[in-house]
């Protein structure tokens, strides 16, 4: 296929600002969708029209029957699907960059001597508007996935039969038309369907996770604002105390010899 590198480059820069779930989704997108599309699917569908044969000598009949059977080729449908499903992520990226620039400008206003280098690796905290954008983008991605799956199901179902019956001008009568490689294409249709469902699932999980974290964060912020040194120490010690308590209760199972102690 043509060059996916532009999209790949953009999506790579999102990686740094994503959660773990977002990175998993991106990896699934790159490897199981874009890579498969560019390698296997392209060549499997390569001769789809040249090998679409109808049992007729009528000129033009083959063309119209192919057009009727495949309003849009699967390959192009998947390309559109990938692009649409990546778009919300790109909008999120745009917002992140906008926020980074704004923060830089604010920082510059505060201290003119600061050395400003746009560091791509500097993370923008996920709070406030950024968080909303992220949640909205995940939601949109899920909706678009579902929409494309429904469209695909409506047009083709999820399998391809070897024979299509077609009656359309200028075909003089009902003709049988034969696809090329219907079984192989069915295998890849099912594969892409499974990958789309996996992506959808990842989106849903991430949405729930981000919302959960948001709620937890609000609960915590009500309890304590940014801790001082002492509070920080206490926090850590409490964590450790909890851990050692848990572990010592496990240890309790080891030593049923309360009398044996120095």
């Amino acid at each position, binding site marked *: 296929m043509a060059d996916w590198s532009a999209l790949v480059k953009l999506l790579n820069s999102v990686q740094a600002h994503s959660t773990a779930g977002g990175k998993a989704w991106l990896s699934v997108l790159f490897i199981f969708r874009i890579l498969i599309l560019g390698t296997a699917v392209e060549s499997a569908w390569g001769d789809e029209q040249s090998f679409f044969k109808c049992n007729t000598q009528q000129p033009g009949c083959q063309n119209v029957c192919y057009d009727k059977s495949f309003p849009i080729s699967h390959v192009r449908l998947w390309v559109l699907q990938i692009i649409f499903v990546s778009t919300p992520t790109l909008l999120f990226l745009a917002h992140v960059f906008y926020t980074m620039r704004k923060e830089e400008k604010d920082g510059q206003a505060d201290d003119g001597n600061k050395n400003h280098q746009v560091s791509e690796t500097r993370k923008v905290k996920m709070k406030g508007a950024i968080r909303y954008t992220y949640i909205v983008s995940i939601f949109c991605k899920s909706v678009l996935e579902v929409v494309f799956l429904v469209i695909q199901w409506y047009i083709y179902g999820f399998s391809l039969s070897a024979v299509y019956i077609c009656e359309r001008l200028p075909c003089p009568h009902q003709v049988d038309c034969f696809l*090329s490689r219907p079984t192989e294409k069915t295998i890849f249709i099912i594969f892409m369907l499974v990958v789309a469902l996996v992506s959808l699932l990842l989106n849903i999980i991430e949405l729930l996770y981000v919302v959960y974290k948001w709620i937890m964060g609000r609960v915590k912020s009500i309890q304590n604002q940014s801790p001082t040194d002492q509070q920080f120490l206490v926090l850590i010690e409490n964590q450790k105390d909890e851990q050692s308590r848990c572990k010592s209760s496990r240890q309790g199972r080891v*030593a049923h*010899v309360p009398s044996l102690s*120095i």
Partner: protein
Amino acid sequence: MGDWSALGKLLDKVQAYSTAGGKVWLSVLFIFRILVLGTAVESAWGDEQSAFKCNTLQPGCENVCYDKSFPISHVRFWVLQIIFVSMPTLLYLSHIVFLMHKEEKLNKKEEKLRDIQSKGEDVDVLLRKIEIKKFKYGLEDRGKIKMRGGIFYTYIMSIVLKSIFEVVFLLIQWHLYGFTLSAVYTCQKFPCPHKVDCFLSRPTEKTVFIIFMLVVSLVSLALNVFEFFYVILKRMKDQIRESAKNFESACNIKPCPRNLSSYGYYNDCSAPAPVPNLGYNLDTGDKSNSSDNYDKQANEQNWTNYSTEQNQLGQTQRFPYPEKVTLGKDLLLLKELEPRPSSRASSRARPDDLDI
């Protein structure tokens, strides 16, 4: 063929965290599979359908016969095989990324603690705890990760999965096509009016490449199996060496028989019996932190302690540990400093650990 660079980039990242065997496997994957697929195999199979000719004029007959003979083309099949076989490695990579993330968090905590320390507070205990946690995850100063605990199991699991996928794909291929292609296929399917002979293009060349890819799969499989055993043996060796070391250091007071199990230790050897959990730590040195281990050892430890108690009651004799009090006290001090039970004797990196 298409662009394998996305997969290539990800697999490159794993290279840094693989053993030597893993790196060889990755190289085999890149050169003998992906490269060959993209160059030679693609062009050999390029005209597979256009040059598939059947001895019939019936429209559509060629299509269905081709479809029947080749439910999935070899090329696509190998693409799927490569992708599925690379998947477990990517899972291993994600575990590593997760560990790096943890390391970042721990580093931040450590920084903050050192900050506080420079202001004069005594945070040694907490700093040591962070050190120990880092050791538990196998995180080293130079940013590498030692293969212990969770990451070791992930690596083993990924090797096992890779081998399983290889075998599964080989079986599928054998079931569909065997490992040769004949020049003639007979086919009878609607709309072919009768049995027809169909002829492939380049069957011999394709057979050569099928056998080539088969051999490469078998080599990859062999590499996986070899690495599996290598990693396990190395880990066992390290464990034995470490527990022997701990054994020796604990047995300085009284010489202990070499072949003691962890339970015999309590009956015959020196001090830590009164501090059972700590002696437990020293003795079981480098075992992983899984709670299963603790339960099992807890169980057996209980039996030992129970039988010891019974002996005591029978003999009305004090258990011979008072003479070891000094050592016990030192060990107690150690115990206070370190959280149990994940503590090692120290968190320094041992040079003979399984390195990656």
